[in-house]
């Protein structure tokens, strides 16, 4: 080199290249052999609460195996997008939680380790698990790519104090009884001419909770979201009827506060029940919130049904809810990741974790523990084992949830600010149906 400027420019170019290379090198260095990264979903009252309840288990894991776990708890609003980014870039955690309704969608990406061989061995084979929960691991007839971790199911929770005041002795069983009771429970307590205590509360702006209701209410009325050939039937007669029952709680029965149309977090609806602003709600696991607030006046009953004693699909009271666990295929530390999957699904940890998060154990060996013999857990267990169907196990499940849930969210918004006719419901579901069909 004869020219200083040339030298300088060459140096700059080399330096920038070197910078680029070291930036690339950085990510691979994270995978030291004794640390794995685990993304946990938010199962507690808050992100911190979830982490604190998970810590003893992870400590036991480190003690047993010498493998450190780098834990990150991710909120439900972010989790799906975070997984999406990880899947696209191929650079993600070693182990992660997923909502079990996403299992098939994520299975299709091919980003998760199939549950066979070493992984299947580590979790002790599929016969250890509840059948319904295991069925959510992936599409039918394919090797699942996730194993159940926490089990959940919908039940109806109610405020016993408000029930007593209204003279209601027994929780409603049919949908008609439910609406009638809700009307009795809706009243004006401060004399300003407007109700301030409501029979029912729901998170009307929660897309996923709404889509669960579209699924359950549709089945109870003899409908389904997809026909035998897999074509969407969101706007079929029974589906419209099912969604109408749900929207009518606000629109015509007037047993649900219009303010609920703005609630997007399930915990806000639980607050309504605790504060006595509402008497009934459908929820999967409010106990952690009840306990945290010292709330004792609650009761639990199965989700009301359109016809008593209905069986099969028409007897559905919940979808097979829960959280699954997957191992990332690109993990540079797969052996240790598999160890963690096996550890978290072991009988002892299933008892500890599901107790902490008030969810259901997904392995039969843990269900017999004394912690899971309460009326609440038994009701949930019954719903999960006998009255639950998995949400459609299709690759476009996420899109189905988004479309049906958003349609219902918009209908609640319409009910809160005006009126909703059956034609409105039909056309909203038809729009969602068209978009689903176009995407398939």
């Amino acid at each position, binding site marked *: 080199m004869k020219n200083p400027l040339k030298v300088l420019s060459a140096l700059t170019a080399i330096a920038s290249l070197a910078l680029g290379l070291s930036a690339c090198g950085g990510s691979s260095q994270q995978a030291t052999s004794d640390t794995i990264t685990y993304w946990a979903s938010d199962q507690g009252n808050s992100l911190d609460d979830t982490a604190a309840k998970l810590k003893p288990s992870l400590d036991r894991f480190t003690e047993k195996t010498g493998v450190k776990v780098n834990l990150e708890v991710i909120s439900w609003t972010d989790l799906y997008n975070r997984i*999406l980014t990880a899947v696209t870039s191929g650079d993600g955690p070693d182990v992660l939680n997923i909502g079990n309704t996403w299992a098939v969608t994520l299975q299709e990406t091919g980003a998760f380790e199939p549950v066979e061989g070493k992984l299947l061995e580590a979790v002790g084979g599929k016969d250890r698990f509840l059948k319904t929960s295991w069925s959510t691991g992936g599409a039918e007839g394919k090797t699942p790519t996730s194993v159940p971790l926490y089990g959940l199911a919908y039940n109806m929770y109610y405020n016993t104090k408000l029930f007593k005041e209204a003279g209601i002795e027994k929780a409603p069983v049919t949908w008609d009884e439910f609406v009638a009771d809700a009307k009795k429970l809706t009243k004006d307590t401060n004399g300003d001419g407007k109700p301030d205590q409501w029979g029912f509360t729901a998170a009307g702006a929660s897309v996923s909770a709404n889509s669960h209701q579209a699924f359950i209410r549709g089945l109870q009325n003899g409908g389904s979201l997809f026909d035998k050939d897999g074509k969407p039937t969101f706007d079929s007669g029974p589906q419209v009827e099912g969604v109408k029952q749900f929207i009518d709680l606000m629109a015509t029965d007037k047993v649900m506060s219009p303010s609920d149309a703005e609630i997007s977090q399930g915990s806000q609806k639980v607050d309504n029940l605790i504060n006595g602003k509402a008497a009934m709600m459908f929820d999967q696991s409010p106990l952690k919130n009840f306990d945290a607030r010292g709330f004792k006046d609650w009761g639990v009953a199965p989700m009301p049904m359109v016809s008593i004693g209905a069986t099969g699909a028409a007897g559905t009271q919940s979808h097979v809810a829960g959280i699954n666990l997957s191992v990332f295929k690109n993990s540079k530390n797969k052996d240790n990741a598999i160890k963690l999957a096996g550890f978290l699904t072991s009988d002892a940890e299933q008892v500890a974790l599901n107790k902490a998060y008030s969810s259901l154990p997904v392995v039969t060996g843990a269900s017999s523990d004394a912690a899971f013999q309460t009326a609440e857990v038994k009701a949930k267990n019954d719903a999960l084992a006998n009255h639950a169907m998995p949400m459609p196990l299709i690759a476009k499940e996420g*899109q189905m949830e988004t479309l049906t849930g958003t349609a219902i969210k918009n209908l609640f918004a319409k009910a809160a600010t005006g009126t909703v006719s059956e034609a409105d419901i039909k056309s909203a579901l038809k729009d969602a149906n068209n*978009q689903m069909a*176009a995407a398939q």
Partner: protein
Amino acid sequence: MSHSALDSGTAAEGSKSAIDPEPGQPQGVTGQPPRKPRRSFLPYGLILPAAILEILIHIGPMLLGIWIAFISLTQLNLTNWLNAPFVGLQNFVNGLNPESTIGQAFFSTVGRTLGYTILVVGFSWILGMAGAVFLSSNFKGRAILRTFFLVPYALPAYVGTIAWAFMFNQRDGAVNQILVDTFHLFGDERPFWLLGQNSFGAMIVVNIWQLWPFAFLMLMAALQNVPNEVYEAAAIDGATLWQQFRTITLPMVRPANGVLLMVMSLWTFNQFNIPFVLFGASSPKEATLVSPLIYQNSFGSWNFGLGGAMSVLLLIALFIASVFYIRMVLPKGADND
């Protein structure tokens, strides 16, 4: 690269004439102006690092986004997206078909976004102009007011918008507390500000609140370049304040205005943060703008091809509008003095 190499280079440089720094060239070239331009690695070497980074960070992803518009990219082939099937214009056909639900949503959204942009930019400009003119005269407390006006612009966008979301809450938000509980408007019915038709207005209010300080800042800077003597002369000739504003102030700040309106329009047309924080992943139908619609199509339904096609259409439309605007409205270099 050794230190001595640098030293010897410097020494060689010192012994040569400034015009020809290249040693080993025929000496006859020296001192023959004008020198022929020679191909040299030097200028390219100097901009190379910047060019590489620009391509990596800016142009690469942009081209990738355009490519995505022509392939069918869904969760099935996301991990292996290089092998996603090429579908030509199919994504554009789906997105533009006015018969389909998706196409209808796209067209009505573009129209709504245009109206939104005009309203937001218009009001922000009027407020910014009024504020700038008001603060261009000297009075006590001017500095405090100036700082005060800039607060919305200084706040992180998310923080400000989240605060608005709380204030607009129907049951216990500050807006309804003031309007309904204190002033008993709306017949004591608490309106929903974030649902239905009102959500569009609420979004406009938040955006104006956030945008107008920028207009204010730019126009205030432009006004400081207008000499005071012009106003004094006009006042002596009997021009009213309005006449002064129309015939002196507006023409004088015209170049600044041209750039300002374009920048604000582009920002507003692409607005994403405000609806996302106010409404979450899916905006109410009445308040869906183009960027959130693209987000919904890409991330809500994992249909990246369609989202990419819509982005490309948006890019083309904004590009044409910008070129047209720059040629028609912005001052040309020659008469800009």
